[in-house]
């Protein structure tokens, strides 16, 4: 198993290298000059040329890339072209809102979806099952910004139960922080509830047809105990795996949700940076999101091997 884990970790390196090259080239080879953007409309071409040298944009591409990778390895993500601040500190500011939103969403989704999926499997073929599956199909298809606006309109504008937009840092009070996260994380969690409920149902259904479930029932265990102790526990592995897929959806969902609810997290930062051609910030953020994606999937593979003793490599 250790050899497998070692190999699995090594396999991450080429993936990340490709990410670095793609992101770097994408920013350099597309038309548009960040120096001209920064300098503004009043700048002369001499100003812009000077600025290009200052920003290191006049070096040959391979040199720029080498400098970039060397700095990255040193933990230096560069300085934002606009805010003249280290990118790393801008990212640090955005992590709390984004992480809060993501965690809130995942916890909420699991709390709703796992019981829902288990119930659907247990009542297979009944109207409850159909209802849950119907919801799941619809939940996949409603875009998060549509749900977001529906929630805002009815719960904030009409009923005035929640603030329309905005975010409050944990440091300013946990109550307000959680209160302001209710709507955004509800909106974002719909697709995960659909996804996880469906996966849970499939997985529990499969387990329910196993011999040991029949044995457990035959020896007279109460249904609830069979379901929770025998079925759900064995169905857990595929449910954990789904988080690997969920993380990709979560990243795109976070960008859109932050935009709808004006949450000053990494998603909004990315949008601003891309529109302003703030190369160092865009590079750092896309790489950060990709690393998160790769590392979480790596962790899931590892957890998978540890959780399920039947899987041997």
């Amino acid at each position, binding site marked *: 198993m250790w050899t497998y884990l070692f190999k699995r970790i090594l396999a991450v390196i080429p993936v990340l*290298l490709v990410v670095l090259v793609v992101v770097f080239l994408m920013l350099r080879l597309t038309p548009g000059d960040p120096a001209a953007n920064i300098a503004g409309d009043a700048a002369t071409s001499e100003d812009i040329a000077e600025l290009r040298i200052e920003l290191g944009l006049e070096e040959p591409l391979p040199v720029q890339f080498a400098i970039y990778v060397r700095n990255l390895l040193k933990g230096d993500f560069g300085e934002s072209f606009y805010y003249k601040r280290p990118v790393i500190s801008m990212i640090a500011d955005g992590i709390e809102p984004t992480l809060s939103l993501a965690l809130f969403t995942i916890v909420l989704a699991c709390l709703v979806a796992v019981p829902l999926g288990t119930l659907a499997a247990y009542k297979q073929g009944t109207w409850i099952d159909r209802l849950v599956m119907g919801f799941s199909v619809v939940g996949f298809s409603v875009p998060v*910004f549509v749900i977001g606006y529906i929630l805002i309109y009815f719960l904030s504008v009409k009923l005035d139960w929640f603030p329309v937009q905005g975010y409050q840092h944990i440091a300013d009070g946990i109550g307000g922080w959680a209160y302001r996260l209710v709507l955004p994380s509800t909106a974002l969690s719909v697709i995960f509830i659909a996804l996880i409920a469906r996966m849970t149902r499939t997985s529990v259904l*499969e387990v329910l047809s196993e011999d040991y479930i029949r044995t457990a029932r035959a020896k007279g265990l109460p249904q609830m105990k069979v379901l929770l102790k025998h079925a759900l526990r064995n169905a857990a592995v*595929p449910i954990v795996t789904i988080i690997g897929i969920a993380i990709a959806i979560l990243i795109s969902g976070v960008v859109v949700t932050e935009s709808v609810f004006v949450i000053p997290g990494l998603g909004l930062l990315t949008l601003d940076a891309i529109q302003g051609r703030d190369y160092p910030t865009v590079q750092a953020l896309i790489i950060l999101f990709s690393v998160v994606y790769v590392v979480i999937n790596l962790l899931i593979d590892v957890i998978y091997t540890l959780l399920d003793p039947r899987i041997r490599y």
Partner: protein
Amino acid sequence: MTDQFPDESSQQQTAADTAVISAESAEAIEVREQPSVWSRLLRHPSVIIGGLLLTLIVGLVPAAPFLTSLDPTDISPRNRNKPPGFMTVHKDEEGSKYEVKAVMGTDKLGRDVFARVIYGARVSLMVGLCVAFIAVSIGLLIGLLAGYFRLLDAIVMRFMDGLMAIPAILLAIALVSLSGASLFTVIMAIVIPEIPRVVRLVRSIVLSIREEPYVEAAISVGTPTPKILYRHVLPNTIAPLIVQGTFICGSAILLEAILSFLGVGVPPEIPTWGNIMAQGRDLFQIYPHSIFYPGIFLTLTVLAINMLGDGLRDTIDPRMSREF
């Protein structure tokens, strides 16, 4: 990662009797039930509902000029921000006035939301179809080559893994905003993140088909490689690709709407569902209609395509797992 995500439809079958459906048995099922594929398709509830719904929405494309006399891009200051049901006043070419009921209200520039929504179907559906077609074609070509030529495989697949690690939405936003917003760049920006998923699917099919006795037989009698790929490998990719293409079409429509909504999509003067919603954002609290109506159409379209895809997968390709 996605490979490990078990397929639900096949699992329901497996739960009953069989173990994992392997490539061969799936094929056997397909062959056995070949004559009834169409009738099975037409009996599948999600194919029926999804298909009907999609037909209605596709019907909007040719029907748009008959459903409204208004131009979706006509700006009219006197008709700004009118609620649904308001009688808006317009002038025809001779200058005489006539009234039109704004079923879905008007936006902040006085454009008729109903006209914009039904004309918006054109762009959204076109983006979905183009992306599905281009992504499947390119992915098929790369996947066939990567699956068949081992030397190419390692390089191509590492590159695809890397491309897949970049979140699709960020890649698309970056590509559009860096190369300038136009319909073409939006389509290409959505195609690029989809390609690796198609490549992986095609490659996995090629790898399993390559070991089949009939392919080995073809190689041993000296059939040229292009002919093997065309005759034996390609037909096996069609059913999974139709299913995959359907899901790509749905997610492309969604992604186009997201890009336009975020202001980095199709140029704002072109009516698309995402653009209509983007333009309704600032006045949303008072005039929610220019967000809700296109949102409903967008949701129904994606829902119809996903239902159709689910049904197609169950019917023509029972072994394929759902990709996202």
